[in-house]
């Protein structure tokens, strides 16, 4: 008898489980296309890139011993324009070095992009082949990475960075890492 009663409860239980899933799916912060990074807590990939303005090569070593942000962008990427104001604001508010990597972009186009919208970056590396992007696990620009003093990737944001993500995710992390 108890078993039969439990059987009638099954649809209710199923409904609650499904409702929980759908509720999560309806949340405005939930994007099913966003993937977790496989690189979290792993060392920053080793790279050496030519830079915009020929300031010598930008390498992994340049970022050693400090908390830095690495932002992949491209002049052909529309969401990158959307996020640019946030990056400009971040560079004004923070002493944390922000490095740019122009992903699969022509140097001249990247330069023009920064000329017209402003340049928030300490230095800009040129990843014309996209190979450094692959080493970071980039699957679509813009993507932003936070790297700690030990040179490990601690955070990755996919898509345009906005004030909300900076306030809710990035700033607490930077405080935790002792960078601000």
């Amino acid at each position, binding site marked *: 008898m108890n078993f039969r009663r439990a059987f009638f409860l099954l649809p209710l239980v199923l409904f609650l489980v499904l409702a929980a899933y759908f509720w999560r799916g309806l949340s405005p912060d939930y994007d099913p296309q966003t993937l977790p990074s*496989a690189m979290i807590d792993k060392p920053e990939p080793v790279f050496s890139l030519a830079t915009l303005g020929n300031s010598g090569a930008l390498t992994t070593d340049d970022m050693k011993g400090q908390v830095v942000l690495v932002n992949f962008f491209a002049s052909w990427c529309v969401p990158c324009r959307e996020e640019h104001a946030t990056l400009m604001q971040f560079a004004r508010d923070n002493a944390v070095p922000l490095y740019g990597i122009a992903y699969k972009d022509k140097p001249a186009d990247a330069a023009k992009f920064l000329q017209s919208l402003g340049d928030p970056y300490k230095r800009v590396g040129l990843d014309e082949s996209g190979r450094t992007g692959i080493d970071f696990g980039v699957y*679509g620009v813009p993507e932003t990475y936070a790297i700690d003093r030990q040179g490990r990737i601690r955070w990755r944001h996919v898509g345009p960075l906005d004030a909300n993500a900076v306030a809710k995710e990035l700033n607490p992390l930077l405080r935790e890492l002792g960078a601000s």
Partner: protein
Amino acid sequence: MRRVLAWGLLLALLAAPGAGAVEPGEMLSNTVLEARAQAIGKELRCLVCQNESIEDSGADLAHDLRVLLRQRLAAGDTDQQAIQYIVDRYGDFVLLKPPVEPATWVLWFSPFAILILGGAGIWLYLRRRGTGMVSGDRPLTPEEQRELDRLLHEDQ
């Protein structure tokens, strides 16, 4: 004659292997390596379109990953090493066939669990309905049996 030609053309088209999105310039001249690269590429997800393999996808990143995969194989990587190289960067999600591990047990085994549960449900239901149709387990009395026989042979 024209009909035969049309059928021949149709069959030839159907028999042709799927071309995928691999561009001629990407292919390796070594056909053995190229075959291996294509087999691996079919198992790797394009992270931009997310439901296509990198062999089938026209996305830029898929192109870069195809080229990368071929470079790894040409440099002497085994299939396993080449796949691991990409999994290290993009995670298990890049595998179209996810590995069997505790985190994916629900994914792999829930269809069988549902099949067993459903089967058990149907079995219970049928068994109960089957016994419900007979009015008790009592055999027919002689009168009932005679009445049944009469009804069955009424027409003859």
